[in-house]
């Protein structure tokens, strides 16, 4: 293809995005667009799958049957999100095996929040409330992103996430209306999950490398700092209703800006976890690898059986 032809295709592509039309898998797209989308969608899919582990840690110990069923269903929803997102990613010309390989080798990232341990039942409430709450703020704009399969997957993901968030908040509410021991458990969970939740929006805008291009492709509509502020403004009053204290001495409502001012985020902790030195990085990847390796003979058996069935059918009809 000549440079002129490519330029022409690029112009058509850019114009489509500018008109808010969707890019579909069979449409022409610049290689960089494809790669960026594989990176972002797979990172999102991996986060869903790795994210099953910290919450899965409490399924067998959930304190009531109702909570057990709700948690099981929630973790299953995350598997479902992983499934649509991997499928969306596969339309860009990469296989699920390759995607898993990237996760297992450490080449692909997933959300660092899942490298923190779930130590008490209140962590299940805090994850729903804070982590899913932050995820929704990150994800709602993606329902209008330019790549069709991703945008459509996100519509469903966001609906379910918002249900999960309410469920998490309801767990916190129950604890905060309970005994002193339960309130302490809730406060302890908030203390541990607050700062990592703020870090979920990524580095500050001047440190973020992908923002500008992502804005253009509608992979992003607001900056990391704007989203983080939105989360804080929305969440602090919820903590007040629970009667819990947000663990930030500098947190204060600013009448002039109409936003909460907040303290300095410990970015050294953020980078430490991103680089693999969080409490659970090793365990999470180990669990994923084990599931994949232990399942290898099962997947091979299913393929072998399907081949045999095909041959049998061909024999009968042929």
């Amino acid at each position, binding site marked *: 293809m000549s440079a002129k032809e490519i330029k022409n295709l690029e112009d058509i592509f850019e114009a489509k995005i500018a008109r808010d039309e969707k890019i579909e898998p069979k449409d022409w797209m610049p290689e960089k667009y494809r790669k960026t989308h594989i990176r972002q969608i797979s990172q999102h899919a991996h986060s869903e799958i790795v994210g099953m582990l910290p919450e899965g840690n409490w399924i067998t*110990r959930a304190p009531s*049957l109702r909570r*057990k069923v709700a948690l*099981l269903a929630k973790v*299953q929803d995350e*598997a479902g999100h992983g499934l649509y997102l991997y499928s969306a990613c596969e339309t860009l010309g990469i296989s699920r095996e390759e995607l898993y390989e990237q996760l297992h080798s450490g080449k692909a990232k997933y959300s660092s929040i899942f490298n923190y341990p779930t130590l008490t039942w209140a962590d299940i409430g805090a994850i729903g409330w804070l982590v899913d709450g932050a995820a929704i703020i990150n994800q709602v704009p993606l329902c209008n992103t330019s790549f069709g399969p991703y945008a459509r997957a996100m519509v469903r993901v966001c609906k379910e996430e918002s249900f999960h968030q309410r469920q998490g908040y309801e767990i916190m509410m129950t604890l905060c209306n309970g005994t002193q021991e339960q309130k302490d458990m809730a406060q302890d969970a908030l203390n541990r999950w607050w700062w990592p939740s703020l870090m979920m929006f990524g580095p500050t805008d001047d440190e973020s490398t992908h923002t500008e291009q992502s804005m253009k492709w509608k992979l992003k509509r607001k900056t990391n700092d704007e989203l983080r502020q939105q989360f804080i403004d929305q969440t602090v009053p919820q903590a007040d209703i629970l009667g819990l204290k947000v663990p930030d001495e500098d947190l204060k409502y600013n009448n002039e800006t109409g936003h909460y001012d907040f303290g300095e985020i410990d970015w050294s902790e953020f980078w430490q976890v991103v680089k693999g030195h969080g409490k659970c990085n090793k365990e999470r990847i180990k669990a994923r690898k084990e*599931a994949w390796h232990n399942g290898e003979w099962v997947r091979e*058996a299913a393929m072998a059986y399907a081949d*045999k069935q095909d041959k049998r059918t061909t024999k009968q009809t042929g």
Partner: protein
Amino acid sequence: MNNQNLTHYLYGLADNALILGQRLSELCGHGPTLETDIALTNIALDLLGQTRSYYQYIANLSHENLSEDDVAFLRKEHEYRNVLLVEQPNADFAYVITRQYFFDVFHFLMLEKLQNSKDLNLKAIAQKSIKEVSYHKRFSGDWLKRLGDGTELSQEKVQNAVNDLWVFTNELFETSKADQTVLKELQIESPETFKSDYYKIISSTLEEAKLNVPEVTYFQEGGKQGIHSEHMGYILADMQYMQRTYPDMKW
């Protein structure tokens, strides 16, 4: 109807669903593929849903203002009436599937009978559950065939699972004196009446899956009488952890 006998009988039904649901929920997030992970979790959810229906019924029968959670979490090990089969560990996917299929076929046949029970609560639970269980049976049966007629390795693994778990099948049909009284009063056919059908169905699936029907001279039992395997204590330690550590709280 004597409530004590009925409660005893209901525990026999409900505890199987609870313990198998608990076992399957250990696997959530660790399945061989995302699709099987989701499917096994679905089965766990169905079983736990059925458990809740039975326990709510038991709680209503009691005069002590019990809740479904008291019934689920606050009994001692010997008070659980589940069969040994459902406590067996998730040793590998072959064990999970075989345990499931051995249970599902029984569960389906039992619910068929329960649907005609004179007890309207039981009838309603059975009518709802049988739709779910017919799916469970199809899932586990299909996988049994895939593993049996898949690769040499999968055949070896699943044959081992069949051999090891076969000894637990007979207990599914065991009924206590109290069970028998309930079955008679509610006009539910005893499991004995479909035992030969059960083994016929299982044997025919095993044959189709290119697996051998094990020949054993003895069967293991005890769960239904409250004498469990060593696994059971650990299952309960996990399951009851919160209720035991933080008694009398709302969650």
